[in-house]
Every structure is written in C-alpha cells, then in structure tokens.
C-alpha cells in the first residue's frame, strides 16, 4: 500500500469533521490480478517460512525446492498471462494506486528475473557436488549457519545432516523484491523493494558450507556497504520529496518538467529548488549505481562475489543487475528525463570509468570468481552505454542485453561450482590449467561462456553488445562506443587468458577434479549454452520482444 494511497485516506479523514456522514472511507483499489506475479512469490515465501517451522527436517529440502520452483513457475505464468493480455503494450498502466507500474519493461524484466532465478535455484538445490558427509547429500550451504566454523556445534550439525533449507524462502523474498524494484512507480516502493531484495541477499552470502570465514566476511561487507548506500538513496528520496512534495514518479516528473504552476509561496524555497532536485537525483542515482556495481561504487562486488556461495553469487550477479538496471532505466526515463542534459556528462563519466576500470583491473586477477566479478563490472559499463542512449531503442537494447547477460552469468558460475578439489571449489586460476585436457566438455562450455562475455560474434554476448553500442551510437554517444570497443579489446585479453590456461597449458598433477552434476545444474548450464548460441545466431525474436516491451508507462 503506497504513500499516496494512505495520503488520500488521511485527507478524506480530515474532511470528516466538516463533511456530512456518508462516504467516510474510500478503500484503496488494488489490482490483485496485475500484482499476481509478486503476490505469488511473496505468498509462497511466507509458506516456506511456515514449512521451516512445521515440516520435519528430512522432508524440508524436497518441499522447499518443490514450492520454490512451483512459485517461480506460477509467477512466470502470471507474467506471461499479463503480457498476453496486452499489459506490456497497449493496456499498460499503473496499478495499486500508482505504486506499481505494469508495463512492457516491468513485465519483460520480471519475466527475465523469474527465469534466471529458476535456473539459479537449480544450482541452489544441487546436492551431488560435495562429497556426501555422513551419508547425507549436502548442498553448498552451511549445515547450520549459526554455528561457529570449526566448532563442535558445526560438526554435530553436519553429522546430523542439517541443511540450511531457509535459503529457498530467502531467495523467494529476494525475488519478490526484485520483481517490484523495476516496476516501482514511486520512491517509497523503490526503497522498500530495494531493502526487501537486499536483506535476504546479505543473509544468503553468509551461509556458505566451505570457506565460511570468507563467506561471513563477504556478508558483512555487503551488508555494511549496502545499507550505507541505501542510506544515501533514502536521503536522496527525502530531498526529492522535499523538492516535489510527492514521491510518485509522475508527480516528480511533472514538477521537474515545470508542469506544476501553482506553487504555494510557503514552499517556494523548496518546491522547484533545483539544488534539492539535483542533489536528490544524484543520491538516488548513486544508490542504484551501487546495486549495478558501477565504478566507483563497485568495490564491494569482487569481495562479495568471491566470498558468497557460488550459487548465490550467480543469482546475485544475474538477477540483481537485471532488477537494478530496470529501476535505473525507469528512474531516468520516467522521473528525470528533464535532467537528461544535467546527468548525461555524469553518466558518461561513470560509464567510461566502469567499462575501462572493470576491464583493466580484471587483467591481473587470479581467482576465477573475482575475475567474473570484474567482468560483470565491465559489462555494467557496456549496459550503461545503452542506458545513456536516451531512446526507445536504447531501452530495448538494454532489456535484451540484460536478458542475454543474466543467463550466461548464471551458467558461468554454475560451471565454476563444478571444478572442485579437497577444499571445495577450486577457484584459483592456476588450478584451472589444462582443464581442457581433462574434461574437454566442461572446458568447452566455459569457453563458450567466456567468448560470449568477450562479445565474439555468433554468441549472444555479441548480439547484446552490438545492440547497446548501436543504440548508443544512434543516441549520439559515439565516443562511448569507441571507449566501449577499446575496453572490450582489453577485456578480451583476460577471457582469452583463461581459455589459454584451460586448453594450452599442461594439466597439473594435483589439479582439481570436475564433479558430475545432477540434472539440475546440467539444466542451468544447458540453458546458458542454449541462450548463448540461439541468441547469437537468431536473436530476432527476442529483439522484437524487447523492442515491443521498450516503452515505459507514465
């Protein structure tokens, strides 16, 4: 229930005193059908909590997995249904008293998020990689997150075959937040959604089974920095509110465009005070840039990606980016189009340092997860180039890129979970030497992902990159395109390095083994490969989808 809704209640209530008895109370209208995707996920998440409480331990895993998958599937079906009903295009509008937009970008991104979450949930549920301890199949999450690493409590928990099945409800909550984030149509909803999907992530980062210290550290860093940034975001919201007197996107946009003439003199010093607008806008922007991991707000990314359990990393890297970029797009296209010219140089700067910085620093990385983290930073830069192209084409290109990129990312991290040695996942690059000799298929698949990241033609990565660069060039950001290609060249260097390592260097004697995953992870990887190749060869259908979905409702 959104601020405006409540506000209206209040005012009506205020009139009661004078007004004659009668219509005292107008209930806010909530279009439940159109919010179905979110509601389903939230509902099942709550259900999941109950399951934790009531279902006996040995059944929880299956129940939770089942519920989660069903929830995501149902929610996705709901999204498809809405899209089919034309909410994506003609009948796009704003639901829940202006709190949530149901339009093309929202639905497209929600669909993407749901599918990505689905495949990453498969990796969550994977229980064949770690050697079974005490006869219990285990996944990549701590037996008992609360117990101190190496303590007797932990040993007991492991012996008892405990598993942190709470991760599934947590994921669902997080997904719910992500579904709302790009659809949020006022700043309050934006903030709440942000927190709703961030908090579960903080927790998920902390519950790795192996390397728990790093896991907890990553959680702490993520949490502190995350809440730090959300504080900034909130302050920005406050300033914007002060500037516009409302938190609804439409309202703010109206004031920004000077649509609102009758300014109460008492508010003259705040209303239409550009300082408030600019500072507030910048702060909100910063909050979102933090989530997408743009330089200089990126520094949490490598540490968190490295420390978090790899399935969580994959989920984060993919879904968070989608949601955050969705929100960013909406903010820039709906709220601050009036500020385009003020923000452009800033955005240019951010995009450039993000592309170059990410690519350059990645060159000298020695840990595969950190490497992918930096690569994701560089990619954030590329996407920003598309965001900056202030045009419908820009929107659709970004949507397309996000769709492509998220699946490849999940797939890549899924492959990372397969390469293991005694200490769990062998993420140090030196361990990957000669992987191509030992298990050509795994190496080949990973190589495909890397080539897609590098944007080699005939992979989806190229289609996406081309789409955003083309949009950028059309939008008059030729300079960004040039920087983009240069940083892609730099980036290519470290992707190639990994391939060299896997195929051209002799396997080490104490090298890692490649575990054989269950169909779950196989599905994840297969989906990744499929998306990479299909969208590389014949992206037309999805481009159509994206371009149809490329219009924001105001």
């Amino acid at each position, binding site marked *: 229930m959104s601020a405006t809704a409540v506000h209206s209640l209040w005012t009506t209530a205020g009139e009661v005193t004078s007004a004659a008895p009668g219509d005292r109370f107008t209930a806010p209208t909530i279009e439940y059908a159109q919010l179905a995707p979110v509601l389903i996920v939230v509902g099942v998440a709550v259900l999941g909590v109950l399951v934790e409480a009531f279902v006996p331990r040995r059944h929880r895993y299956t129940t939770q997995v089942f519920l989660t998958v069903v929830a995501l599937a149902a929610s996705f079906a709901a999204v498809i249904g809405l899209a089919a009903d034309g909410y994506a295009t003609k009948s796009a509008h704003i639901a829940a008293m202006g709190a949530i937009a149901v339009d093309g970008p929202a639905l497209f991104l929600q669909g993407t998020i749901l599918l990505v979450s689905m495949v990453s949930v498969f990796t969550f549920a994977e229980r064949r990689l770690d050697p079974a301890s005490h006869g219990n199949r285990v996944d990549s999450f701590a037996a008992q997150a609360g117990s101190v690493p190496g303590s007797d409590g932990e040993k007991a928990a492991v012996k008892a075959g405990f598993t942190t099945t709470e991760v599934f409800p947590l994921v669902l909550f997080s997904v719910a937040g992500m579904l709302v984030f790009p659809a949020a149509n006022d700043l309050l909803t934006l903030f*709440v959604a942000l927190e709703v999907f961030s908090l579960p992530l903080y927790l998920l980062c902390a519950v790795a089974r192996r390397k728990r210290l790093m896991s907890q550290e990553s959680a702490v860093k993520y949490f502190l920095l995350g809440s730090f940034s959300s504080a900034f975001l909130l302050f920005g919201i406050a300033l914007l509110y002060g500037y516009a007197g409302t938190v609804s996107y439409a309202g703010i946009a109206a004031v920004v465009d000077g649509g609102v003439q009758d300014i109460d003199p008492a508010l003259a010093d705040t209303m239409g005070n550009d300082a408030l607008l600019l500072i507030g806008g910048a702060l909100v922007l910063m909050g979102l840039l933090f989530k997408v991991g743009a330089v200089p707000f990126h520094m949490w990314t490598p540490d968190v990606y490295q420390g978090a359990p790899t399935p969580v990393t994959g989920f984060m890297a993919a879904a968070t980016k989608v949601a955050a970029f969705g929100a960013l797009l909406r903010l820039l296209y709906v709220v601050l189009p009036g500020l385009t010219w003020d923000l452009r140089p800033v955005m240019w700067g951010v995009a450039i340092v993000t592309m170059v910085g990410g690519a350059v620093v990645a060159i000298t990385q020695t840990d595969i997860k950190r490497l992918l983290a930096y690569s994701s930073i560089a990619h954030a830069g590329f996407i920003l180039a598309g965001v900056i192209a202030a045009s419908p084409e820009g929107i659709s290109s970004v949507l397309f890129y996000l769709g492509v990129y998220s699946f490849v990312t999940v797939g890549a991290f899924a492959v990372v979970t397969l390469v293991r040695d005694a200490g769990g996942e062998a993420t140090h690059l030196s361990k990957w030497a000669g992987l191509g000799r030992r298990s050509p298929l795994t190496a080949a698949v990973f190589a495909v992902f890397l080539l897609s990241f590098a944007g080699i033609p005939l992979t989806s990565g190229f289609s996406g990159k081309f789409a955003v660069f083309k949009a950028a060039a059309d939008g008059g950001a030729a300079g960004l395109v040039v920087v983009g290609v240069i940083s892609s060249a730099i980036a290519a260097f470290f992707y190639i390095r990994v391939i060299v390592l896997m195929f051209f260097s002799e396997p080490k004697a104490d090298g890692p083994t490649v575990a054989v995953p269950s169909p779950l992870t196989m599905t994840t990887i297969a989906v990744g490969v499929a998306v990479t190749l299909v969208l590389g060869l014949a992206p037309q259908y999805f481009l159509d989808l994206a371009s149809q979905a490329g219009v924001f409702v105001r």
Partner: protein
Amino acid sequence: MNPVNYLYLAALLFTIGASGVLIRRNAIVVFMCIELMLNACNLTLVTFSRMHGNLDGQILAFFTMVVAAAEVVVGLAIIVSLFRSRHSASVDDASLMKL
C-alpha cells in the same frame, strides 16, 4: 521556528553518520552510524512533510523505521556470527579477500 533549520540539523546528522562509517572500525558502531544516517533521513522526511503539508513524508518515515528494524535484525545476525567466529567485530580484521 523555521523548519528549514531541521533540515540543516538532519544534514549535519547525516554527515556525522557518514563520517562515522568512514572512520570507525567496530562493525557495531559502523552499523549504528548507518542507523544514524537513516534517522537523519527520517528527520528530513518529516520536516519536508511538515513544510509541504502532506503526509507522504511521515508515511515514508514509518516505512523507514520498519526497514531499519529489519536491517538491524539481519545486520546484527551477520555481525554476531562474524564476531563469534573471529572474536573481533573490527571491520578491518575482515579483510581476507582483497586485490
């Protein structure tokens, strides 16, 4: 009294909180600083709400409090578990991962 002063106060608090985050080592204290920043935001919101004469700001403030509470739960859980495994709540000790 001119409500704008509250804005200045809020800004001051926010800055104090932010600088606290940058300066202090103890995770708990850092976290408290963040809470301070959130509260500064609340103050701002409420002030603006008063100036605009509409209640959106106050509603927002309520939401913020709830969110902050939730953050406390999550945050403390994480920090405590870290503390238990390291016997130190210093954020600087938590630097296994770098470079």
